[in-house]
């Protein structure tokens, strides 16, 4: 079980940090998002049988659910922009609007200069997107058949298509399994076919929704390298993730999104610097007295305390403005209540810490 116990010293809704200006001069803007909002109509579950539902009247009243609440950012050519946020933050909804699968409730966005609402076909021509990963391709077809099929749907002339498909299969290291049914591929290979599909039309912009989700660590690492290679071809990439290491490693800039809003936007380094005055003090304690969490939280230099109760070892992470002064106090306090400290370290802040200090909660639980 994980609990985050924030103190009240910091506001939980910090204003977004905008630093778009740094990059604007260098290269053209490929993705421009202005105040994008999505409100889903939501009807409370209707439990009546189908025949009754098909008749008019008697339905529960509609409610509204704000999934994306005024998101703005822009991405320059050749840049990887990471949207980092917890489950339900609105990452997928944002990407689905940009890829013309969803109509925004308000706001505008352009991809390579084309408006997502008024020029949807042109947007789709300039865009490769991987939304549902390995579920976005046909498992009963071979890798090559999948790509040739989608090439036709992208209106790529047959001769060009054949060549492009072979080239991509080669490039993504799938050539020797290209004529096997996808159902026999590993998750990593399926994901690569999905990415190859997105690259078919040689689009300048790529949208990747949680590209490494469900992959084993090795495949995930390979895929991240592939994403960096794709970026180095000059493509512009928007990716979403709820792995902070991934956002950190891949993104030139990161937008931290929570509850449909971007609450911070900058390079990973700048984001971490913004809470540099905070250290993260991490402890592993046996026989920990749970009521101490409250006491620790109330100590003057402590910003918040995250505790994982484990048997027999508890892990604690304290954000503090002064780890030097705090360290001996914590050791004494924990010891006085019978706790034995098994491990301890003072860590540099991570993006996770940035998120916690902005929202008072953890990215993942």
């Amino acid at each position, binding site marked *: 079980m994980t609990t985050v116990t924030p103190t009240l010293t910091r506001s939980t809704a910090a204003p977004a940090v905008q630093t778009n200006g740094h990059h604007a001069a260098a290269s053209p803007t490929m993705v421009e998002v202005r105040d994008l909002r999505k409100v889903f109509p939501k009807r409370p579950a209707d439990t009546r049988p189908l025949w009754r539902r098909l008749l008019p009247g008697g339905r529960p009243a509609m409610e509204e659910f704000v999934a994306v609440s005024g998101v703005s950012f822009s991405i320059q050519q050749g840049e990887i922009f990471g949207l980092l946020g917890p489950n339900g933050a609105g990452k997928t909804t944002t990407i689905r609007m940009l890829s013309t699968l969803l109509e925004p409730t308000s706001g505008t966005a352009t991809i390579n200069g084309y408006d997502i609402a008024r020029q949807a076909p042109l947007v789709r021509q300039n865009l490769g997107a991987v939304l549902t990963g390995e579920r976005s391709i046909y498992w009963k077809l071979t890798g090559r058949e999948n790509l040739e099929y989608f090439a036709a749907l992208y209106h790529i002339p047959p001769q060009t298509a054949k060549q492009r498909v072979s080239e991509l299969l080669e490039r993504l290291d799938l050539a020797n399994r290209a004529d096997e049914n996808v159902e026999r591929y590993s998750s990593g290979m399926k994901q690569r076919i999905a990415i190859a599909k997105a690259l078919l*039309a040689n689009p300048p912009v790529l949208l990747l929704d949680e590209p490494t989700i469900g992959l084993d660590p090795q495949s995930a690492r390979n895929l991240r390298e592939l994403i960096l290679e794709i970026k180095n071809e000059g493509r512009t990439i928007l990716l979403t993730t709820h792995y902070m290491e991934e956002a950190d490693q891949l993104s030139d800039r990161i937008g931290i999104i929570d509850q449909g809003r971007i609450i911070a936007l900058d390079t990973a380094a700048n984001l971490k610097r913004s809470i540099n005055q905070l250290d993260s003090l991490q402890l592993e304690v046996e026989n920990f007295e749970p009521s101490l969490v409250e006491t620790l939280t109330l100590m003057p230099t402590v910003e918040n305390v995250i505790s994982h109760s484990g048997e027999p070892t508890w892990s604690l992470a304290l954000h503090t403005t002064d780890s030097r002064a705090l360290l001996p106090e914590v050791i004494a306090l924990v010891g006085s209540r019978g706790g034995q400290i098994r491990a301890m370290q003072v860590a540099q802040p991570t993006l996770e810490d940035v998120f916690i200090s902005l929202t008072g909660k953890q990215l993942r639980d």
Partner: protein
Amino acid sequence: MQTLVQRSFASELRAILAVANKEWTIFRRYPTWIAAFLFWPVMFPLAAIMTARALGGPSGAGFGAFAQLAGTPDYVAYIALGNTVYMWMNITLWGVGLTLRNEQMRGTLESNWLCPVWRISMVVGQSLQHLATSLVFLAITFVEFWLVFGVQIVRGNVGLVLLVLALLVPCIYGIGIIFGSLVLRFKEPNAMVFLVRGLVMIFCGVSYPLAVLPGWMQTVAQYIPLTYAIQGIRDIGLRGASLAELTPTLMPLAWFAALLPILGFVTFTVTERRARRTGALGQY
């Protein structure tokens, strides 16, 4: 960075063919359909045929009334024709309707709709493939009745039979596309298939002359295109009707053939727009 997209009318047609071809490849890789295709054409009408045989009595004395109402004593061909049209509608409902739903559930629907191809082209391609397999199914039906019962179920003027089929195809696929759109929207394909095919089964005179139905049911039957198609094919094969005699049956069928594909297109477009607003497409 130059994209490889080159849109034209020809490329849209190629996309439609690619969809049909993909459906066919996937279809081939689920071999269970072969058994179904061999088994059902004769098995399905068999119940009605045997019931008829029992009611007709050992000497066939009971068929007099049937022959009077149906205009032919050949009850095997009569029942087989009605059931075959019904089966065709049925496999189209499952086929076109459920293909869309399956794509929605598997996650491939959205990945198709990310492409610049027209969204209706996907449905058209799927319908093409289903039409091709349905024609195979019809051929198998014809051969099996010949082998098993020694009855040639389609006979008479081939040109007229083809005319009825040509009018029936747009009706069946129009209904299929309307049905597929509603399945995307309501997500309860099984209940909906039972509803639609129940209507066809009862009201269209699949196994009996419409005259045996109560008056209000005959009125309902007038609003279902399959009623006219079944009647037309029976009139041609079993009574040797001429084009002039068929005209009153074929005129309503022609109207349905013109309207249903348009209605299918409209339903699909409305569903697709609505899904883009509510986000219902990606859910399952």
